[in-house]
């Protein structure tokens, strides 16, 4: 809402010394937030005066244009009293006309400095101005021609043109719809400054009678009040007075024609939308009803709209002529030939307004006010004000007929304990203050201790005691709310799971991984690029009805697309050695479950709650990571070490170890991994996810370097197995006995399996088994490899003899031989 200060002042007597900045700050503190403060006119300086055109010589130019060489009487404004010679390109004036002249030394909006300059063979000393050049709107039909009685040549013209004003632009919250009017802003300004307020809606209006235009309302709930007045003999050529056009312009709307401008002006003034019809284009009585599904209406914006049964329509014998409260229809629109104007001021059901606006994707100044709720008690005043202005400036006469159908619904009373504002805000607010402040916002207050309050008709947002508390509190001043810490009971700190999650992040960051956050939106192309098979469950994703991009309408089921895009972006920016991770939920759609819209006047029942929970998709936390380039950089110390599939697997093991979880690694074939370099990770027999090298085709599809390694696991699942209380280790301090074995096995026997077998075969004395070398070559034969393990033995209660260690080692090797055909290498 943009409110010109001159207009605010019309309804509130601002105390002396209150600057526009003060006013804006005080209104902000009351809840009308200052968005911008403008000083129109301040960008136009220097001599701006009335000039009388004395002579005007048209001079055709070689470029086809004709300019006018004019002499203009500007009185003594030029210091000489001599006529001023000015070249002017416009033609909408004649010798003898009064025009607006800016003399050399003046500066027009946009920093355009005026000086005497040579042009078209003349010395042009000034400029005859159009409205647009003066910042008075976008009318560029020609220069401004003032009425003959506007003044004398040389007179200043700023006041005449209503150039100077201050405009406060507010951000209006949905609950303060009344402040979408000067009436409302001025009321708040009075509250803010203590100035005396005059309500512009308070006026004597003619009583309704039977002579008015016939109106029938079929749906009084949708349209509780309809007022109609008619002005006849209206001069369609009459122009909007300069002050009105200027105010409409400063308020952010466009002046159009007198009849339209008057309805907009009064809407801005009183906050009530108004619609004007060309009365001669109406046929038969007006009827307000709900639309029939499929009915058509072409609205003022030229759009043919198919109506739905929820829409409220204004009709006459021809059918729908307007979408009630939202936008009028084309067939009865006021035009340049309209001489009879029917003024409609009707109150509409805000919910219907909201739905219709949404259904037809229509936002209008009228709709914006109607859907938030307007004062239903002022249609008569608004209609009367429109009639007054039309008659005054358009020269018609007001018909005696006054139509009024329906009445404004009474406001329900709200009970409030006088102590509630203090109890809710923590401020000291006595009963007298409560009553005074509620009265100041327009409430009727009665009773004591327990107050009965009738909210004012322009405040449909006030319905509850707590609404009243806010009204009281904002006038007392939010700045007076004390600052007191609440007495929270002893808390239990973070949950174990929250602590585990932090641990995962810290562990990976400590291992050199950088955390990233990616958007969860993907398209099927992302799954194709991962080369997921057609029946891969990851392709079943929750679809958004209104995605930002039609290419990414799905809620992702895997973090890999976002991760790989991030890798590609980093590589593109020159960061080629990468280790990244992300921990974020993915969405696994629930099939067909409806999340019921439950009542809000009570707690949901257990069944209702269960239904709600069921319908919310499962969103397990996933962890993805990716590596490319060098894991350890090359440097003066020697070559680097490339990141490989093994790093990805190790990262998962590292996290698991940090959570004291044992993971089992098995070879797997799973998109998007390289079929020979993919590990599936298990915890307690359940699959956690996969890690390894990305399939070369997937690397290409995502534009990431070849051999990029990735992992993705279900972190929620891993966290379920995390050990909160790690048992303290019980270790022996006796000497260790070390034994190394090299076993030749077929190369399809997983090392992990051989190690496990050794561990099992070595018995309880075996402290650890660690693979330290893998050898392939002639010595071990084709299809085989040699795995070298370091075994450590130790007893809890004694020093092991050489024989004991050897026996344990022999047993381990024997079991490996039995299970895997392992042969000890000589």
């Amino acid at each position, binding site marked *: 809402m943009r409110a010109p200060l001159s207009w605010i002042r019309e309804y509130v007597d601002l105390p002396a010394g209150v600057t526009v900045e003060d006013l804006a700050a005080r209104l902000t503190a009351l809840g009308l937030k200052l968005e911008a403060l403008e000083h129109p006119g301040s960008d136009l300086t220097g001599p701006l005066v009335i000039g009388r055109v004395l002579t005007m010589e048209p001079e055709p130019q070689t470029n086809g244009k004709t300019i006018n060489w004019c002499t203009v009487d500007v009185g003594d404004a030029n210091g000489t009293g001599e006529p001023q010679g000015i070249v002017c390109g416009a033609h909408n004036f004649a010798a003898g006309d009064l025009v607006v002249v800016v003399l050399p030394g003046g500066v027009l909006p946009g920093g355009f400095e005026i000086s005497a300059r040579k042009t078209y063979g003349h010395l042009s000393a000034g400029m005859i101005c159009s409205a647009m050049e003066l910042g008075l709107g976008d009318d560029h039909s020609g220069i401004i021609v003032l009425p003959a009685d506007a003044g004398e040549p040389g007179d200043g013209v700023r006041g005449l043109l209503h150039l100077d004003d201050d405009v406060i632009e507010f951000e209006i919250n949905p609950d303060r719809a009344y402040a979408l009017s000067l009436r409302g802003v001025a009321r708040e300004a009075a509250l803010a400054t203590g100035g005396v307020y005059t309500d512009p809606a308070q006026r004597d209006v003619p009583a309704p009678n039977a002579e008015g235009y016939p109106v029938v309302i079929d749906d009084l709930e949708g349209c509780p009040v309809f007022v109609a007045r008619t002005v006849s003999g209206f001069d369609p050529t009459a122009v909007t007075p300069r002050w009105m056009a200027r105010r409409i312009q400063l308020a952010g709307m466009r002046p159009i024609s007198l009849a339209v401008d008057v309805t907009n002006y009064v809407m801005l003034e009183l906050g009530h939308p108004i619609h004007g019809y060309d009365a001669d284009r109406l046929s038969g009585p007006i009827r307000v009803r709900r639309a029939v599904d499929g009915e058509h209406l072409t609205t003022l914006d030229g759009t043919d709209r198919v109506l739905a049964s929820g829409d409220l329509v204004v009709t006459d014998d021809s059918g729908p002529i307007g979408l009630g409260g939202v936008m009028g229809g084309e067939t009865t629109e006021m035009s340049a030939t309209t001489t009879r104007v029917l003024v409609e001021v009707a109150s509409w059901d805000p919910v219907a307004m909201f739905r219709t606006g949404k259904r037809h994707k229509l936002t209008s100044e009228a709709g914006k006010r109607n859907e938030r709720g307007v004062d239903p008690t002022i249609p008569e005043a608004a209609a009367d004000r429109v009639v007054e202005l039309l008659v005054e400036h358009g020269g018609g006469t007001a018909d005696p007929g006054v139509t009024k159908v329906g009445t404004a619904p009474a406001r329900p009373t709200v009970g409030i304990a006088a102590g509630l504002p203090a109890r809710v805000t923590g401020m000291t607010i006595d009963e007298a203050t409560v009553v005074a402040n509620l009265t100041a916002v327009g409430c009727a207050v009665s009773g004591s201790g327990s107050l009965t309050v009738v909210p004012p008709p322009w405040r449909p947002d006030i319905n509850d005691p707590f609404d009243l508390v806010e009204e009281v509190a904002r006038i007392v001043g939010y700045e007076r709310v004390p600052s007191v810490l609440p007495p929270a009971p002893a808390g239990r700190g973070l949950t174990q799971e929250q602590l585990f999650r932090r641990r995962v992040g810290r562990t990976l960051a400590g291992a050199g991984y950088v955390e990233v956050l990616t958007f969860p939106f993907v398209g099927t192309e992302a799954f194709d690029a991962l080369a997921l098979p057609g029946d891969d469950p990851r392709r079943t994703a929750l679809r958004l009805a209104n995605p930002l991009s039609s290419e990414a309408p799905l809620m992702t089921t895997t973090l890999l697309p976002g991760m790989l895009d991030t890798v590609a972006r980093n590589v593109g920016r020159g960061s080629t050695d990468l280790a990244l991770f992300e921990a974020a939920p993915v969405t696994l759609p629930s099939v067909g479950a409806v999340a019921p819209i439950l009542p809000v006047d009570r*707690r949901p029942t257990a069944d209702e709650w269960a239904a709600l929970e069921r319908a919310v998709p499962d969103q397990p936390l996933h962890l993805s990571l990716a590596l490319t380039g060098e894991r350890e950089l090359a440097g003066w110390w020697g070559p680097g070490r490339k990141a490989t599939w093994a790093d990805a697997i190790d990262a998962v093991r590292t996290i698991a170890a940090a959570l004291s979880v044992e993971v089992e690694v098995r070879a797997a074939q799973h998109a998007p991994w390289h079929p020979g370099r993919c590990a599936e990770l298990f915890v307690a027999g359940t699959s956690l996810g996969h890690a390894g090298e990305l399939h070369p085709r997937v690397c290409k599809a995502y534009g990431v370097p070849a051999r990029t390694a990735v992992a993705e696991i279900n972190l929620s699942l891993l966290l379920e197995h995390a050990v909160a209380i790690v048992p303290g280790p019980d270790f022996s301090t006796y000497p260790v006995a070390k034994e190394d074995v090299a076993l030749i096995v077929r190369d399809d026997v997983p090392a992990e399996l051989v190690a496990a077998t050794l561990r099992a075969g070595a018995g309880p004395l075996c402290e650890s088994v660690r693979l330290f070398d893998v050898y392939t070559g002639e010595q071990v034969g084709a299809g085989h490899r040699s795995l070298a393990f370091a075994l450590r033995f130790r007893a809890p209660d004694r020093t092991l003899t050489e024989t004991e260690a050897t026996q344990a080692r022999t047993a381990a090797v024997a079991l490996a031989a039995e299970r895997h055909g392992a042969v000890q290498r000589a």
Partner: protein
Amino acid sequence: MSGPNSSYDPVQVTPLGEEQVFAMRDEALAAIAGAADVDALKQVRTDHAGDRSPLGLANREIGALPPQAKKDAGMRVGQARGAVNQALAARQEILEAEAEEQMLVTETVDVTLPWDRTPAGARHPITLMSERIADIFVAMGWEVAEGPLVEAEWLNFDALNLGADHPARTMQDTFWTEPAENHVVLRTHTSPVQARTMLTRTPPIYVVCPGRVFRTDEYDATHSPMFHQVEGLVIDEGITMAHLKGSLDHFAQAVFGEGITTRFRPSYFPFTEPSAEVDLICFVCRGSGVVDAGGSASVQCRTCRGEGWIEWGGCGVVNPRVLVACGVDPERYTGFAFGMGIDRTLMFRHGVGDLRSFFEGDVRFARAFGTEI
């Protein structure tokens, strides 16, 4: 092997004269002093203090002397040997020190050589700020509540006094999932966690909830379809706006530093009544709106654009209608709630100019913040 001296001939034994012994000693001492390094000293030790050295031999001869001569000679030889051994030890110490000194000099390296072998890891600043905020409230006895990102429409809106026809619904441009009749949305704020918390816990409730939220905003320097909020909720007996103010003042100081307080402006949120916008006193200009520009000049503060205050978030007293829908007795309990943007908080706390920095995943961004914020 040392054995009896075969050349031992007592007849040839001559009494060990003082001068003779002194000469041996002095010769030995001179040799010790002349030893250039540990190896040379080792040779000197053999030559002058070993069994076959003159003093060694002299020592052995003592046994053959008559008692009186034995005593005198023993004393003289003993003293001489003592002096030699002492000198050897001293020289050994000096030479070892010299050798070590030398070794340390030759082993000198260029310690300015880089060892940037493993690139540094980092956690995301949003994660770090979420954790820091959680810690601030946990320190006050609050707990951290969480909820799903894909949420039931009823919890995101209706339960929060945002019915289907509420104009304020259009303030939060919502991502809807298909089919629409399932009534599932991407949560537009962390407030559904409020509803979940009230429905699953019993008061007193003191929780904070950092998390992701979604709105259909086009992605640019100041808007993102995904961003982060932190929600606070307190439900207890006797809770007032003053407690809200106290909590937010504490929060502001914990995040932005001593003396950084908040200001409330009346506002509107369907789920709170009364509602307020929270402004933060600008931690750069501390409310003055201007900053020093060197000398006596000052320029408009860029962080707050000269206003002295920064818009931080929204808050208010929990609307009793919300309490009712979430099964909390509004006669007995009151509460407050607040919501702040985490991304936004980071942007002005750290002077991050472009919101997209948080979501592009450029490693240079997260690395700048490290592992603690």
